[in-house]
């Protein structure tokens, strides 16, 4: 019986501790979620490096500057955080490699939510549905670096706002 009581006390204690820690962290100006590598901070007012794989109508690289619906979404996101854009064109594999190495911040190219790159990159929540060649419908996603959760969340919120009227 005293053992039970002690355990319950410990539980109350740990609950109170969790609340206190959260409050203390909020007080120190820590935000949840935060990035492991600080991508959102670096991008804000800085440069957003985006990897593009041609996949019209989402991404078209036939002109000098990339165009397409995903390019537009990324451009408006960059505007919202005051970032200038730099584009890197490459295959998905090359771009995911650069993403993992921290060379670029984002990969677009009409990727869908069942992409095999989910092991190596963080998928955004699907921002729209798209009809595939086989007639099935899949969610469209972008690839962010693993563990950059403030950046990922900011991007998802932006995509939500941009597609709110359309999907």
């Amino acid at each position, binding site marked *: 019986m005293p053992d039970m009581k002690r355990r319950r006390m410990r539980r109350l204690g740990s609950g109170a501790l969790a609340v206190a820690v959260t409050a203390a962290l909020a007080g120190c100006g820590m935000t949840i979620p935060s990035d*492991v590598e600080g991508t959102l901070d670096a991008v804000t007012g800085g440069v957003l490096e985006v990897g593009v794989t041609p996949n019209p109508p989402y991404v078209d690289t036939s002109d000098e500057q990339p165009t397409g619906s995903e390019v537009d979404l990324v451009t408006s996101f960059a505007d919202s955080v005051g970032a200038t854009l730099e584009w890197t064109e490459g295959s998905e594999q090359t771009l995911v490699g650069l993403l993992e190495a921290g060379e670029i911040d984002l990969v677009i190219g009409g990727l869908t939510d069942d992409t095999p790159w989910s092991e190596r990159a963080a*998928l955004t929540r699907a921002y729209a549905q798209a009809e595939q060649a086989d007639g099935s419908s899949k969610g469209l996603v972008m690839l962010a670096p693993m563990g950059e959760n403030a950046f*990922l969340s900011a991007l998802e919120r932006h995509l939500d706002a941009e597609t709110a009227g359309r999907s």
Partner: protein
Amino acid sequence: MSLLGGRELPEAQARALRKARTLEWAVLAYTAGTIVLVALVMGNSQAMQTAWVEDILSTIPQLAFLAALPFVRRAATAKHPYGYHRAMGVGHLVAAVALLAVGANLCFEAISGLVKQEHPPIGTMQVFGVTLWQGWLMIAVMAVIMIPPFFYGRAKMKLAKQLHNKLLYADADMAQADWTTNAGSIVGVLGIGLGIWWLDGAAALFISAGILWDGLKNTRASVLDLMDMRATTYDQSEPDPVHEQVDELLRGLGWVRDAASRIRDEGQVFHVEAYVVPKRAKVKVTDVDRAVAAVQALDWRVHDVSVSIVQELDLPEQQEERQERRRRGSR
């Protein structure tokens, strides 16, 4: 209806057994709900995924108990002359080995995630049109489902004690320690939220080590039971007092010079083999029959009793005592 080994249970135990069965079913239904709920929010947090697997694993001892119950209720048959009591012990062993194997696997995954420095991504989720960081949902769910195991764990513990059921004890013990899993996963998710990527893997390791430990503890306990260790209290912490009571009762009979016994703990009931040295060479059959009945009346758990008349006591207990005496004498 409240039979155990084909014999009527005392009123208190019959009620406890009914309660235990109802409670196990209720907790199973509840756990099915939490499994779905956690699956909906768990995302990419390794700690959450580990906690989810633990949730699923926690149903195995309960299922084993419910599966074994109809068997242990049965009376002994010609084919199974000792009854079906071991069904409980077998269920316990199966559940324990499952915990052990999955716990080891999860430990390995947590460690490999830490070694590979995997940074778990957690994005946002839309709930009723509001975009929320998914981590907050995870924390909320884990904090809420942290509480019920305290209550049902305690209730199960009480029943396990009353019923002398080791499987139920193991189940209750795990339920009472369940909050550490939830607290661990909350720490892991908060870690991800703060950008401390390794905290998630560390929390997953902590949770899986808990599962592994449960597996080890229960494998040991169930194997000891199945290997006919002497009868112990329901938590195996000390020898069961019933052994002492049997010996004392027999030694107290008028025609008995000395007596000793060994008890097989069948998981929930005892089979007693008693050895009696009579004062005279002639022993009345009715005296032996009465001794058997008296031992059986000692405790509801004493199911099967055989009394042998012998010249000299030669159980392992006496052999060890003799050896001890010889060793002391030679010194």
